[in-house]
């Protein structure tokens, strides 16, 4: 990528950008909203995290190495998985967490492999300049998608337990009895990605494309990347969520095909989730 005509900031220009935060703090102060601490903490965190990542990326880009690229991807995936755990509305237990991790790792690894080797055909294959940012974007969107899928599945199973049990009473399999909840969770998980595709280029310019254009890349070339990344995101989110849902609905039924949320003698250890 040619960075020659990219604009470089001076430290003073960055400092001036913090005026936005000062304005925000002022507004919050005047309106008496108690968010001051959170705003300061998040601004400081953002700054420190990005500086840190900046230096790490400098090191990684200067020392291209397959193991480092893979390690970075592994760390990102692990953090993303823990982030999904934190975002669940109800407390989930180990058996359920395991499924999320399995789906995340299988879904992301399968799709990234195809994306990097078949579509991008990087040379060398581990070229960190492309592998890491694009991998990061796909992991990030997958994290959001699967969080939505998890939450909608958990709420759906609880809110529609009478319907699920009603279907079982008529001889339905657990899969059919929970089909509408699973479909709904899939739909909700995919919605942000689908909306992003629809609005892209008209309602907003995607971050990666904006970045490339600022960095001096030809818009047409930036668009080619954006299109393939967007398709990669859609594929990864759908496959990951699909794997997750396919495994997760089964956790709500036992081997006698009884729905465990309505069973009277269900032990806590056998539950995938604790509802408040």
């Amino acid at each position, binding site marked *: 990528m040619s960075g020659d005509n990219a604009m470089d900031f001076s430290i003073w220009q960055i400092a001036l950008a913090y005026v936005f935060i000062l304005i925000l703090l002022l507004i919050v102060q005047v309106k008496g909203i108690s968010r001051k601490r959170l705003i300061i903490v998040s601004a400081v965190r953002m700054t420190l995290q990005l500086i840190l990542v900046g230096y790490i990326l400098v090191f990684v880009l200067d020392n291209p190495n397959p193991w480092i690229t893979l390690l970075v991807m592994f760390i990102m995936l692990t953090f993303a998985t823990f982030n999904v755990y934190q975002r669940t509305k109800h407390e989930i237990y180990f058996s359920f967490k395991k499924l999320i991790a399995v789906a995340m790792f299988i879904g992301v690894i399968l799709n990234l492999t195809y994306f990097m080797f078949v579509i991008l055909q990087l040379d060398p294959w581990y070229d960190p300049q492309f592998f890491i940012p694009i991998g990061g974007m796909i992991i990030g969107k997958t994290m959001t998608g699967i969080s939505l899928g998890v939450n909608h599945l958990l709420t759906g199973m609880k809110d529609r337990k009478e*319907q699920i049990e009603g*279907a079982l*009473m008529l001889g339905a399999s657990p899969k059919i009895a929970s089909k509408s909840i699973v479909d709904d969770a899939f739909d909700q998980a995919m919605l942000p990605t689908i909306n992003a595709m629809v609005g892209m280029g008209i309602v907003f310019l995607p971050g990666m494309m904006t970045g490339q254009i600022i960095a001096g890349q030809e818009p047409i070339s930036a668009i080619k990347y954006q299109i393939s990344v967007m398709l990669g995101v859609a594929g990864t989110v759908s496959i990951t969520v699909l794997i997750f849902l396919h495994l997760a609905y089964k956790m709500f039924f036992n081997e006698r095909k009884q729905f465990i949320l309505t069973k009277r003698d269900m032990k806590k250890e056998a539950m995938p989730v604790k509802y408040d």
Partner: protein
Amino acid sequence: MFQLQNVEVEDVLEMKDVCLESNVISIEGQSGSGKSTLLRLLNNLDSPTTGNILFKKQNLTDIPPQQLRKQVVMVPQNPVIFDGDIQDNLLIGHTFSGAVKPKKAKLKEILENLWLDKPLHTKASELSGGEMQRLSLGRVLLLSQAEVYLLDEPSSDLDDRTGSHVMKYFMETAQQQQKQTILVTHDKSITEQFATASLNMDQYSKQIRQEDERE
């Protein structure tokens, strides 16, 4: 067709040796005596803590759950309505099991007999509670594989006149097709009119027994 041997459900039920053979069995007892629990056990939605339940001399644990539930169909107290119209809801049991669906004329005949005179394409979610209850009764009457009906308060949302008409139709149809009905109801007239046997759950309820001992 059912036989319960040394069945115990934690702190709720204890049934040493009970046979449920009669054609129409009314399950009676105070609230909390375990009436619904018994129906749930027979439909295999719950399992007893200890003991055996036999259906046609076969242990429930040896019968695949879906096969059992196709033969022993339960209608819960709060009618369950699925997405779609009346027709979808009447046929949902067939959709689940992949069985051959009955003709439209048959559906209309059932609706008429249940005093549910609405077009088949009426959205099911627009029905009143009583109408939903009748719909959920009609749904199971269409299941030819069913051998036993478990009904939990089947007429609770119906007025007396409609309730007695609907139950009469249901019982007669079940009788014609030689199907057994086990029902929980507070409506004495239904019990007096149709039940060929009754089972009082108070004697098996651990809770009620404890209360009696205290007094």
